[in-house]
């Protein structure tokens, strides 16, 4: 059948009574970097949370590496090899940098070593004994990405890693994403900043009102930029 590492079909999700995702469909192939683009409130974060099992109720199909995730609790999903970097970064204030980095347990062999992570993010090494939330926004973002690289996860779900960061930090994160892709990670990236997305991604899905409304290959982004501007309202 398909080669996709992640295949999401007819994904619906609810927060309490409110029905937020209305049948999301997309796939991510092994080694690909795919983005979900869309306006505020379109349902991008909810899609990642629904894949992780972090919404109240969900239905549909989420096939990952041969396993069906729809009925699994989030700890089991993580143990299958999915790493999650939340939009709000989720750095723990009561833990120092190294404790934050070491918190997610290794779920599969083949994760990066702490030294490798410190090589990619030298700032973190210098500040390993600082409380996690004393870092700058950019450093916290790097910590949030760094801590899911150790675990052996092969699919990374990254929710707006560039949000609110200075251009120089955004370029650093872009370089990191290209490094991770070269190392073989499969990445599902949520972005609002499509100019940034275009520098790292293979394909883009456009999310609108809880549905995927279009798919654009990165190479077509130029000729279809008018459509994209319309989708994103920029």
């Amino acid at each position, binding site marked *: 059948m398909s080669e996709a590492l992640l295949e999401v079909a007819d994904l619906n999700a609810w927060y309490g009574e409110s029905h937020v995702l209305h049948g999301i469909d997309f796939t991510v192939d092994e080694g690909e970097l795919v983005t979900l683009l869309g306006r505020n409130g379109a349902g991008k974060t909810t899609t990642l949370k629904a894949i992780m*099992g972090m919404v109240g109720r969900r239905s549909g199909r989420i096939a990952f590496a041969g396993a069906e995730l729809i009925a699994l609790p*989030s700890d089991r999903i993580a*143990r299958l090899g999915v790493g*999650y970097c*939340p939009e709000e970064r*989720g750095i*723990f204030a009561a*833990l120092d940098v190294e404790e934050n980095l070491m*918190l*997610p347990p290794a779920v599969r062999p083949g994760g990066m070593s702490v030294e490798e992570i410190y090589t990619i993010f030298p700032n973190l090494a210098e500040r390993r004994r600082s409380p996690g939330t004393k870092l700058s926004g950019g450093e916290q973002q790097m910590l949030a990405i760094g801590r899911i690289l150790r675990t052996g996860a092969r699919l990374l779900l990254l929710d707006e890693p560039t949000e609110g960061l200075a251009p120089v930090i955004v370029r650093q994160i872009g370089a990191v994403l290209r490094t991770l892709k070269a190392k073989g990670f499969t990445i599902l990236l949520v972005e609002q900043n499509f100019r940034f997305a275009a520098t790292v991604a293979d394909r883009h899905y456009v999310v609108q009102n809880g549905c995927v409304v279009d798919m654009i290959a990165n190479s077509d982004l130029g000729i279809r930029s008018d459509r994209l501007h319309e989708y994103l309202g920029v």
Partner: protein
Amino acid sequence: MFSFLHVAMPPLPLFLAQLLVGLINGGFYAILSLGLAIIFGLLNIINFAHGALYMLGAFCAWFLLSWLGISYWAALLIAPVAVGLVGMAIERLFLRRIARLDHLYGLLLTFGLALVIDGVFRQLYGSSGMPYSIPAELQGATDLGFMFLPNYRAWVIVASFAVCAVTWFVIERTRIGALLRAATENPELVRAFGINVPRLVTLTYGAGAALAAFAGVLAAPIYQVSPLMGVNIITVVFAVVVIGGMGSILGAVISGFALGVIEGMTKVFWPEASTTVIFVIMALVLLVKPAGLFGRAG
């Protein structure tokens, strides 16, 4: 002048004896409020059953000795494990069902559990209390020159300090402690990293129960083993927790010992006030710093 001072200052032995009593009570307050703080942090439950678990620890030691001839020292290990298992069962059977509801439900549920446990023991054993003798190794007293220090009381102070220190170390310096701190902040995210948080919650409640039972065994030879012992201590412990700040580990330990000593000192200087002083301090702290001395607001 001198004679006035002589009247105002109590004799040294009385002062030291009350300091000792204060440190001992402070040790119990510290261990119990430590358990309450850990449970509150992760489960968001104000565990009113804590006094009952403490009482169960003392009864467990008493059963072990009088039915099976098992010594105090073994009871110090067995009772916390046994009561810890009871605590884990309580969490799985009851507390888990209300985990998503407001604080208040947990408070009411644990309050109800405490009433049931206390009631059953009062029905079976009355309220007079049963003696539990000091283990042979710790009988007698040591002459410090200026006073006689009962060996068992010295042991209680050392043991409660040690238990608080070990608990602090586990929480602040180990991997399991890091998981606990992280899950206290954001349980959903910790779970999304692959940690079985429901199991961590069960273990944490069990550990809090085990701490309470350890205090109960330590207390058995000092107070009597009585169905009322939990009720008697828990009101003060809640005041201690409010003063220290709900959920602060270090705050629980420091305010436990400090308030025990303050209570003891009040007995020396103004005996009539000794039972109320902690509540007066609680009221003052609530007025000035509602989140408690060591608590974080919000």
